[in-house]
């Protein structure tokens, strides 16, 4: 028997389309040998390792938020970093296995989005050493990834429309921008909690663990600026691709419309920040609202309105 782990043919033929198939669930209590019956691509194996490590990392980070025990944050950071390494490997291997940048299905896109969130987190953790960020971002990345774990994740033949470099660039930019918005969302959330702690004179463990308002506001602002730049470039490349694929730069499709609305909101906000000093709580509320709008546009809009601009086609 040839090793099915590496066989793309067997893989395509059988229905290993899910991160967790019913059979695999049974496997947890059954014989591990059965893994050989069902071929598993290396990228899925790595993805599972990443998901598992994110889970452990998220749990550790949440524990760290309420515990005075020292050293948890370090272990959590190590776990999340290991998860990130596995995740990176999974994406690269999948790219090699599939022959395209793996951001064409909803599962692939969310997976890349989670990867970008962890990337953003690791960069900020390196720069700011704020462990509380991990208590929000790592669980967020885990939940996002886990929520699509039962979605199809087969490698498929791409329709010619999707075989464009512009599409890859467009999606990557938008998702990286989204990750930056996720950071601003989390920083905003933490800001509101810490602001309330300070106003209400609530000196508890959470107060001690959360960083200063200044740092949170700075993070929020920088994340919005970065996200805004990436998002803008994403929209531009997207419309270039739209010209190729649909013959028009802009078609006021629901997703495009929402993106434009989000873009205008952030533009207006950045203007207000520079001219009127909109910061602190106002900035926090905006980054929370903005991120919810981004997530809705990204994943939720397809469920409500029919749009040609989706991942599931």
């Amino acid at each position: 028997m040839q090793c099915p782990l590496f066989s793309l043919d067997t893989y395509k033929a059988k229905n290993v389309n899910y991160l967790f198939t019913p059979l695999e669930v049974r496997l947890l209590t059954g014989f591990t040998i059965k893994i050989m019956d069902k071929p598993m691509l290396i990228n899925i194996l790595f993805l599972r390792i990443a998901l598992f490590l994110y889970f452990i990392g998220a749990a550790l980070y949440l524990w760290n938020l309420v515990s005075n025990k020292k050293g948890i944050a370090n272990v959590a950071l190590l776990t999340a970093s290991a998860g990130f390494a596995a995740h990176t490997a999974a994406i690269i291997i999948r790219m090699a296995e599939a022959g395209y940048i793996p951001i064409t299905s909803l599962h692939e896109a969310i997976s890349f989005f989670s990867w970008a969130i962890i990337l953003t987190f690791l960069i900020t953790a390196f720069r700011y050493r704020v462990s509380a960020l991990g208590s929000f971002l790592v669980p967020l990345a885990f939940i996002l990834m886990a929520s699509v774990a039962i979605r199809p994740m087969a490698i498929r033949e791409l329709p010619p429309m999707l075989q464009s470099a512009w599409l890859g660039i467009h999606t990557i930019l938008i998702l990286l921008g989204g990750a930056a918005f996720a950071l601003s969302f989390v920083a905003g959330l933490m800001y509101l909690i810490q602001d309330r702690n300070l106003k209400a004179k609530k000196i508890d463990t959470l107060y001690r663990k959360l960083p200063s308002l200044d740092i949170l506001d700075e993070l929020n602002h920088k994340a919005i600026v970065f996200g805004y730049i990436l998002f803008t470039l994403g929209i531009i490349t997207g419309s270039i691709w739209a010209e190729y694929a649909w013959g028009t730069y802009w078609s006021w499709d629901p997703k495009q419309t929402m993106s434009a609305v989000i873009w205008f909101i952030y533009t207006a906000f950045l203007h207000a920040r520079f001219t009127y000093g909109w910061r602190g709580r106002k900035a926090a509320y905006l980054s929370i609202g903005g991120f919810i709008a981004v997530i809705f546009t990204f994943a939720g809009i397809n469920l409500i309105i029919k749009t040609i601009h989706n991942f599931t086609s």
Partner: protein
Amino acid sequence: MNILVVGLSHKTAPVEIREKISFSEKVLPDALHKLRQYPLVREGAILSTCNRVEVYSVVRDIEEGIAQVKKFFTDFHDSVNPKDIQPHLYVYSAEEAVKHIFRVASSLDSMVVGEPQILGQLKDAFEYSLSSEATGVVLNRLFKKAISVGKLIRTETGIAESAVSVSYAAVELSKKIFEHLEDKTVMLVGAGEMSELAARHLKNNGVRNVVVSTRTYQRALKLAKEFSGKPIKFEDFPNEMVHTDIVICSTGAPHYLIRYDMVEHIIHQRKNKPVFFIDISVPRNIDPEINKIDNIYLYDIDDLQSVVDANKKEREKEAEKAEEIINSEVVTFSNWFKTLEVVPTIVALKEKMEEIKKAEIERTVSKLKNITEEEKKSIESMATAIVNKIIHTPLIALKQETNSEDGALFIEAVRKLFNLDKQLPHHEHKKKDRG
């Protein structure tokens, strides 16, 4: 041989007693020298701070040793009536003594749990005693261990974190709002002991600009000089607030000096850059309503006190963790201390030799094929003779030296040279697991 602590502290004696029997740096060498003159005292060290005076010693006999160290106290301070001191003295011996010095080093026995000075004072006391050649193997190890336990507890637990004074709580809160204090400006409106202390703490934590405004300009001038800051006239302070990040208010005014509309105006002009108001005055000088304005944070004296209380509770919780660490460190130390006794060392040495002998005989015999029972016996007796001859003089020396000054040193040396502690559980490594 036993470890002994005799002393008194803020918990057992009032300051009038403590100051009478303290040992100043000047008299320490002399005191240590005299302490060593007492026949039962083998090693000695003296810790003398404003809150405690303690004599650490290694004595040959507990009962007699306690009597002699107590006598040392009164002999040295001959102007003091022994009856005045006796009731305040506490005595700890053996494991209790080890536990005591660990608790002292960790500041668990201090007036304010988590205070940093005691560790330095303990280090100094050790160095004095060491340079006066008053300490030996046991106290050297005990003090070094105590200092490392003190450090360990400060890093592993939160007993030394978070402010436990009102003025320092103000600094801590500032850091939760501003993060960096270097580019911030603090303004004193009115002055008092507590607000000056808070300003000083803020300066020590990086604040460069201090503005002082008091009712009498003369006073402002003087204070501003002290803080190398800027004095301003009292009527100008509301305008100056636009450039101020931290306002400490403490005047005798019976009404609100800083009102809601003033602050609302200021925050608008500052483009929402946060301001931290600290109102130390009673009756209050700042309208409490301003706390509701975005980017304005107001703490009055009661609020600061509640922060301090919360922090103190936190430290107490952490102190429990510290006690656990101390208990396990005491066990480690006691295990080492026990090895210093001569009999177990002799037994261990003999066992080790016997072990080596047996193994070597077996190896040799198994190599020789056609060996008779008689030949085997003579090999065995030769090995026994060699081993016995070799350890004969060390054993005699050990037995003799045990009762001398450096007895512990000999035992320690033998244990190290022959690697006798291998079998004992190695507690040193446990420290790492705790992290």
